[in-house]
């Protein structure tokens, strides 16, 4: 597996030899070799915790390797911090952008790389250089716009320009498409291809195999801290990569029969929400969800999906409209709370499992009754029934194959996928009439995703009404029976699942008509 085929005539931009790094007893990177020929796009895939980010952090100087050597452009290079990395021509675009929101684009680009003590000179220098970069790589951004005024896709361009401005010839992108619409992602890929043409080497970390197949020249697969394969993208397939990542064959298709919708379980009429800052979050939302169907909500995050889930689960009250959910009526005057909602047979798998879904510092058994902690099943008159709680947790763990099946282990010490399975088990176990799910597989490893999807479908088949909010279009298309698209707090479109494809959904998510005009004036 170690052998890589690349023609010796192409110089290596990056050559890592025997990189190892441990954190205490955990070996995050074990004897890793990686060779990236100059002027190529190289993908690194692997499940969560496979060690991809650690490896890139070593390359960018956040961590120092315990052993191993780094050769940049054929030269042995010591990278102790990010200054060393920048000096070696390495730039990184982080998953979470490192931008000052109330600075302009230009100010962000020159931040930390000013040419003198006085700003005026730096600004002039920087703007000429940045214009040149924009020209050369087709990276159009309005330099005078403030960061918080431009869309995420553009913010990412700013990050890219920032790296290039500092002279990067090797660009590392960590999960770059997580926050982008499919169209924005396509634009990013165009930019990356044009960078490649100019001789820039690109390393992209992603868990989306489709992107790897579209974009990269070579792929390296990591599993449990080790490199398990280096392959030419043209010689491999999504299925083969997934198998390499997980280490066993996995099924990516789902057993899903057409939905048989029955009575209405959620009925929303003219729902509106204006938040404490007087900003409108939801605007005249109306739709229904029936028993026995999965309704998906698509949209770029921050367009009101989270608020919708919060209102339906009772965590927040609405400002306008009316909701009937499994016999319960909620209006701005007649508010409800999460406990009442739960009693009415509505379960909620929250979007953010570490902030809401469980309590990281609670034991698994304590987290396994979160929201149901007042139930007589777990309480005597005064004392809690420790044994009953533990048994319940074990039951959930067995039913959803949570590993390790240890109710006393702290919730934080489970992997993301197992935490999510525990939450899903907790919410699905009482056989809810309505199931609200936010981001069911965010940060969950591939092996667990198929299992979670199958469970959601089986809840539908048992007659639950399922409302599914997800940022993954693949997921919505394969799970949902109908997909509603949200933009700016409104529903801007509805698509039957069998007619849905990423392109039409993506256009709706970006609310195509208005933004396409904007794009036109920009370019």
């Amino acid at each position, binding site marked *: 597996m170690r052998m890589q085929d690349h023609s010796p005539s192409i110089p290596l931009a990056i050559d890592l030899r025997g990189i190892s790094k441990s*954190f*205490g*007893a955990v070996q995050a990177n074990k004897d890793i070799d990686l060779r990236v020929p100059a002027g190529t796009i190289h993908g690194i895939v692997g499940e969560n915790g496979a060690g991809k980010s*650690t490896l890139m952090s070593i390359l960018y100087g956040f961590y120092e390797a315990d052993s191993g050597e780094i050769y940049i452009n054929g030269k042995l290079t010591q990278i102790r911090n990010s200054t060393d990395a920048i000096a070696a021509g390495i730039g990184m675009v982080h998953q979470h952008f490192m931008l000052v929101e109330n600075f302009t684009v230009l100010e962000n680009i020159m931040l930390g790389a000013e040419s003198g003590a006085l700003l005026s000179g730096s600004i002039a220098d920087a703007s000429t250089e940045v214009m040149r970069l924009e020209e050369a790589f087709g990276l159009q951004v309005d330099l005078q716009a403030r960061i918080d005024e431009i869309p995420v896709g553009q913010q990412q361009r700013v990050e890219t320009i920032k790296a290039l401005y500092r002279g990067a010839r090797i660009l590392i992108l960590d999960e770059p498409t997580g926050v982008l619409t499919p169209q924005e992602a396509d634009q990013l890929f165009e930019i990356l291809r044009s960078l490649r043409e100019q001789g820039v080497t690109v390393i992209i970390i992603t868990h989306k195999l489709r992107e790897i197949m579209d974009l990269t020249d070579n792929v390296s697969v990591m599993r449990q801290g080790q490199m398990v394969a280096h392959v030419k993208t043209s010689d491999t397939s999504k299925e083969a990569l997934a198998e390499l990542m997980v280490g066993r064959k996995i099924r990516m298709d789902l057993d899903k029969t057409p939905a048989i919708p029955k009575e209405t379980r959620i009925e929303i009429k003219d729902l509106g929400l204006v938040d404490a800052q007087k900003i409108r979050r939801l605007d005249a939302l109306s739709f229904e969800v029936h028993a026995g169907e999965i309704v998906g909500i698509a949209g770029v995050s921050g367009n009101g999906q989270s608020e919708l889930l919060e209102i339906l689960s009772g*965590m927040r009250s609405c400002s306008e409209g009316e909701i009937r959910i499994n016999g319960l009526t909620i209006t701005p005057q007649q508010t409800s709370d*999460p406990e009442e909602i739960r009693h009415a047979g509505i379960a909620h798998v929250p979007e953010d499992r570490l902030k809401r879904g469980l309590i990281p*510092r609670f034991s698994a058994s304590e987290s396994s009754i*979160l929201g149901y*902690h007042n139930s007589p099943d777990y309480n005597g008159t005064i004392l809690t029934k420790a044994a009953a709680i533990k048994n319940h947790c074990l039951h959930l763990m067995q039913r959803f194959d949570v590993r390790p099946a240890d109710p006393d282990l702290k919730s934080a010490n489970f992997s993301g996928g197992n935490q999510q399975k525990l939450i899903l088990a907790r919410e699905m176990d009482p056989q809810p009439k309505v199931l609200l799910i936010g981001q069911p597989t965010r940060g969950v490893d591939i092996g667990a995703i198929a299992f979670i999807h199958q469970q959601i479908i089986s809840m539908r088949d048992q007659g639950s009404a399922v409302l599914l909010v997800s940022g993954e279009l693949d997921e919505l298309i394969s799970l949902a029976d109908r997909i509603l698209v949200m933009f700016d707090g409104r529903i801007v479109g509805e698509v039957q699942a069998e007619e849905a494809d990423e392109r039409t959904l993506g256009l709706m998510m970006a609310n195509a008509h208005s933004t396409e005009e904007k794009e036109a004036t920009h370019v």
Partner: protein
Amino acid sequence: MSSTKQPLPAWADILLIPLINLCIAFAVSSMIIYLIGENPLEAFKVMIEGAFGTSEGLGYTLYYATNFIFTGLAVAIAFHAMLFNIGGEGQAYIGGLGVAIVLLALDQTLPFWALFPLALIAGMLFGAAWAAIPAYLQAYRGSHIVITTIMFNFIAANLMVYLLVNIFIVPGSMTPESRVFSEAAQLPFMHEILGWLGITISESPLNLSFIVAIVVSILFWIYVWHTRWGYALRAVGFSESAATYAGIDPKKIIMVTMLISGGLAGLAGLNEVMGVQHKLMLDFVAGYGFTGIAVALMGRNHPVGIILSSILFGALFQGGAELAFEMPSISKEMVFVIQGLIILFSGALAYMSKPWLEKLFSLFASKKHSETEVD
């Protein structure tokens, strides 16, 4: 993954760190004692013997410890809900006022067995009431509880001066004190209780409140870890957003927890007013409320830890007094310095040594790991 540190094993966290902190505090204290020309070892011997060597000394140590258990538990329960109650001092003071009001009003009419529970409840209620206003301001108005509880300490102190000088003072007396309660309104001393059982020990202020403190500690443990209310309390402390998701109202939990916290602090007033002084007087709280913060920190907010660290602080108070008496060159102020150092190192700087220990432990762990790897 993102951190090179490993969590410490539980025993190191609970035992090793407090011990290391104590050693540092004693080392620094030794240097100071050495600098003023006394033998540090001799000084510590005097302190330890003074605190534990005689039944009288032990009695005093446990009497101080009683106050620290109450105020320590008060800080701890608030801390489990992520609230920092600095107002134990004022709550204990006002708690004592509640005890005194009940006893002054009823000590001529009711027998001890009726007065005791009434005084106990009054102490808790008054302490709780004093915590209620900062709690309300925190929960519903967003004022920070640290600020408001500190303010309320000052308000309590001045209120008590006013009440004692103008209302409770014995007519014609020059000292701002209430009259002494009747026999029926005094908690039996431990030397009396043991005397009834035929065991003779020297006289000390240690009284029935100590038993109350132990019982309350057990109730604390049950409440926090073995009831659904404690579950809700800890849920809010760990993650307010997850608690909201679970249908727990953080505002309600803040109110309830602060009321309990104030009530616990108020019991220190029971020990002082009904147990020792047998009258209402100025400044009987004497910093016990503040020391409770260090006690709770050192005791890791767990009743067992709080009892142990209360005894340690009790020993410091008692042994320190003995030291000032035995070694004239070590003044009372010097003893405060030593107490202050211990509070500093085991309270304020409680986690100072943690990063180093974690590094040390992960070093050992990785060594072990690589050894097994080689095998």
